[in-house]
């Protein structure tokens, strides 16, 4: 059998059998959350949410914070709003303020519909990111409502009081909608299409000639919330 030959090498076979070793590096960002105390995780997440809140109150040029969406902030805001507004009921007039569930539904379904509307109009935005931004932008209205709550506790009902309340809520309404415009303004210098808050966010993602169509429902959405806050008794 000529095919099979005894092959012999004069040079002995050498080499490493072991697998090439990957230098062991601790990937802190990825793995450390597994064995860190719950407290640390909690505090870190709270910091992220807190920085987003700060971002809504005081829009800055570093507006990339809202890029990673989360729904914790909106949930907290929504629950505060719903708890405060819940259950104003007048037996004699039969009038009823919004109930907890109603506020909850208005906030989440409203944000969802506004987002869907923007997407249907051809906006290039992700669903949850938009819901996240819309949810965080409730913050000025929630703050206005808490102030109103203290005012109700302190002062008697009077016409001056009502006017102060209306001005306060109107300012918060404007803040919810147009405060984020500052962010867009700054964002214009950065060539990134992700813009971070309500009008700015949704408006910029729209094709030209449709911004007003996307912005109008946002105004409507915050208007219904503002109306709830201003009529809260």
């Amino acid at each position, binding site marked *: 059998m000529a095919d099979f030959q005894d092959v012999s090498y004069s040079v002995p076979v050498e080499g490493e059998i072991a697998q090439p070793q990957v230098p062991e590096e601790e990937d802190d960002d990825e793995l450390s959350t597994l064995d860190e105390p719950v407290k640390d995780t909690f505090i870190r997440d709270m910091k992220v949410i807190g920085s987003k809140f700060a971002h809504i109150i005081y829009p800055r040029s570093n507006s990339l914070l809202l890029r990673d969406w989360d729904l914790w902030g909106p949930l907290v805001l929504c629950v505060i709003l719903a708890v405060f507004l819940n259950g104003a009921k007048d037996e004699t007039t039969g009038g009823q303020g919004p109930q907890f569930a109603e506020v909850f539904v208005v906030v989440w379904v409203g944000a969802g519909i506004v987002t869907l509307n923007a997407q249907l109009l051809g906006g290039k935005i*992700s669903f949850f990111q938009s819901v996240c931004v819309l949810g965080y932008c409730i913050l000025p209205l929630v703050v206005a409502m808490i102030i109103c709550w203290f005012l109700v506790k302190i002062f008697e009902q009077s016409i001056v009081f009502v006017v102060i309340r209306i001005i306060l809520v109107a300012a918060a309404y404007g803040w919810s909608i147009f405060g984020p415009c500052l962010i867009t303004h700054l964002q214009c210098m950065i060539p990134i299409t992700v813009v971070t808050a309500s009008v700015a966010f949704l408006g910029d993602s729209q094709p030209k000639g449709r911004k007003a169509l996307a912005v109008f429902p946002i105004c409507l959405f915050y208007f219904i919330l503002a109306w709830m806050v201003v009529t809260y008794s």
Partner: protein
Amino acid sequence: MSDPVQDFGFQTSPNEKELWEPTAQSGVTDAATLNVENDEGDMHTFTQFPDSAIDDENAETSDTSGLIDKKENPIWSFAFYQKLFDVDTNIVLNRIMGSMIPLPSKSFKSAYIGGRPDLYGPFWICATLVLVVGVCGNLTTLLTHYSDEKYHYTPQFERLSVAAIIVYSYTFVWPLLVRAILWWRKTASGFSVADIMCIYGYSIFIFIPVSFLLLIPVPWLDWLLTALAISVSGAVLLLSLWPAFRDDSRQIAVVVLLVLFACHAAMAVGLQLYFFTPLSISYAPNATESAPSKLNLDHSTSLPNPTGRSFEKNGQ
């Protein structure tokens, strides 16, 4: 989840995009020449290629763009609704203007919709109307009792739900019925459900400004405004729907259109009665005072102890 392209801040510039997706134009001009030599030694140089030879992906996109008008997307698909929201701001504003000016020569459908019905307008006009009617209805109650010292305002939030049910079912469910009538009479194939919803949705726009005017507490003016709004929007509605029934027998067409107009008027009058009629005084907090006197007037003979009755009433 968020779109990775957006998350990482990538934005393909037009040039870059062209690199990846060459347009048909550049595909032709940049195409290498293909030389073919046949048996006789003649040489022919092809410089033009059929569309299918350029790029599969490219050909596909151009195909679908041609099909969009012909192929119906299924009702559960996103694209189906995207088509119905394919409007620009000025189109919507034009349609809103058109919905308030009834012209016999210019049907709203042919002049403004023209085969491209949208649901953006109807949906958000309804939402606005619900909100405006709810808020103005609350303000009406507030204004009526404003001089009353004891009146304590409570928002009537449940009225919003009522308004939403009335307005949305009138705009989005009622047209289904209208389309069913058309289908039953086998006339007017040119009217789709979306067309009719669009006509209905825009036709109720006029009630939004009228709702603000209804805050003026003058009853005859309120009724005049409502009648005006009903006749204007009703005229737009009937003029646009008339072509659908034109081919039918005259009597049926007239009867159906009258019924539609009556429903339109009923919806508007119902909204006005429910939201803009101030709550009767007997429900107000000062009922404790007014109720006994009222009872005194009504039942002075039959009721020996009116105060006892009034306590009963309060307890309810």
